[in-house]
């Protein structure tokens, strides 16, 4: 906290970047949510199911990204190392 406080006090929103370099993967959640909000507003046929479809698409994006990360990890760390 003692190291975080000066950084927070000096931080100016929209002028300085957020210091979230260690937990950057958390940013996938709002990114996926905003993409789903905009995309489903265009593609949904029945707007009564809009919020449900936004939720489903957000979860789908996050799950697919986790799956892709796991697949990449397996290829690089397991299969490529085994082939060496």
């Amino acid at each position, binding site marked *: 906290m003692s190291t975080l406080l000066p950084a927070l006090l000096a931080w100016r929103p929209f002028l300085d970047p957020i210091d979230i370099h260690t937990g950057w993967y958390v940013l996938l959640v709002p990114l996926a949510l*905003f993409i789903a909000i905009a*995309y*489903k507003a265009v593609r949904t046929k029945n707007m009564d199911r809009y919020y449900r479809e936004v939720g489903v698409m957000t979860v789908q994006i996050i799950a697919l990204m986790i799956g892709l990360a796991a697949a990449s990890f397996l290829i690089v760390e397991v299969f490529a190392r085994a082939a060496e």
Partner: protein
Amino acid sequence: MLLAWVCPGAGHIFLGHTKRGAGVCAGVLGLFVFGLFLAGPTAVDSGLFFHNLVKRWTGGPNTTFDTAPEGDPIWFAGTAFVGPIALAVDYHHQFNLKQPAERNTSGGVARRSPRPFPSAGPDGSTIAPAYSRALGRVAEIGVLSCTLAGMLNLIAIIDAAHHHRAPRRRREGGSA
């Protein structure tokens, strides 16, 4: 189509699809503001490429060009679809936040982001830099977020061009 570019979602709202328009507006502007919030002005940086393109067409043979070598014109091409707000943010970034650094080969000035530490003012006080340039993952995700906002608005613009005006709702029990 023009309305949809000027304000994301306005094309759908004009056609009577208010809820769709509100969704597009929230999603596109949400992504754009999220990118700016993450990375600051670094997320929107044309590097004066398009500014110089217009200058090249309209200027004479002795026109000088200011340059901004740190810019990302390809990513900005996607971000520009967010609308005039993206152009305004980029203009503010290039001409108010970046500083003239050195002369370039065309006789203009190369504009660069300020050094990331406070400088001393004329009266001895410390002056904070106009902004800090984002680096690493935060910069990547900020730029990605703003460009995705532009690409999603492009989908919305195309969709608004193919949509018909929504039929007005009939009053219950009344005649059409």
